[in-house]
């Protein structure tokens, strides 16, 4: 009788699950912020949302896509997303603050 058993293959999922929990929490935080209306949020709200986008994008790039082993590509994609969201946030803040009137 063969008593040699191959050990069951196992994989680590904790990092992926933690990333998912943080992504969902940040999404809900963004939604929660959109429910509030305050004078201060007119000025800083789009910038907070832009920061949330960047944070979520970094999590997707590092955890889901595994770009930690290619730091240059990670920096390039993060910079592109930073530029994209910050310009949108600044334009929308300018409009919300009545800059077009």
């Amino acid at each position: 009788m063969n008593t040699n058993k191959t050990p069951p293959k196992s994989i680590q999922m904790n990092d992926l699950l933690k990333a998912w929990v943080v992504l969902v929490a940040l999404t809900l935080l963004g939604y929660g912020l959109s429910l509030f209306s305050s004078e201060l949020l007119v000025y800083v709200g789009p910038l907070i949302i832009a920061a949330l986008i960047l944070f979520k994008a970094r999590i997707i790039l590092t955890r889901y896509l595994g770009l930690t082993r290619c730091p240059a590509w990670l920096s390039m994609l993060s910079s592109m997303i930073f530029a994209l969201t910050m310009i949108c946030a600044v334009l929308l803040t300018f409009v919300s603050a009545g800059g077009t009137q």
Partner: protein
Amino acid sequence: MDEVCQKDNETAERVYHQPVSPWALENLPGDPMMWILIVSEILVFGGALWAFAGNELLNPEIYREARTHLNVPLATLNTIILLTSGLFAAIAVRFAKIKEIVKTRLSLLGAGSLGVVFIALKIYEYKEKLALGLNVETNTFYTLYYLVTGFHLAHVIFGLIILGIIALWPTEDNMESGTAFWHMVDLIWVIIFPIFYLMGQGL
């Protein structure tokens, strides 16, 4: 024996000292061409989002009124669905690396099913808008809304086809390339959703 050890040491030393460019394409997960595509897609969507934000400078009243018809809770739910789908895709790659083919395919099925739910909810959202008479010609806000979200939806459909193909041939390389596309779809939505639905609402 000593010769073999010496040879191994030489090889190890050569690899250790070999300068590797941080831009080296071979370090990227999956096919390098997929990453060229991902960069170009971010640029294309980025251009459309800048057009959207820039257009608000010209039509602030139209944008303010148009935003009141957006279904933010439904879009938030759709974001969570797509993020969960991304989780399943990432899990599928882990299973593929240890050659657990059945579990890989089941994870891909989970990712694909959530992708289908995303499409269904998006179509429901479009129907809701069309019932209110808000179509692609209503104003610039809705022209860009349908253009950007519709183009993203086309990517979700294409991503589902890719997930189906890699489920048939779940090699590690195929899995990394295919799921990279799916995560890109996820990433783009994570940018589109707040810019269209959240910024400029109360914020």
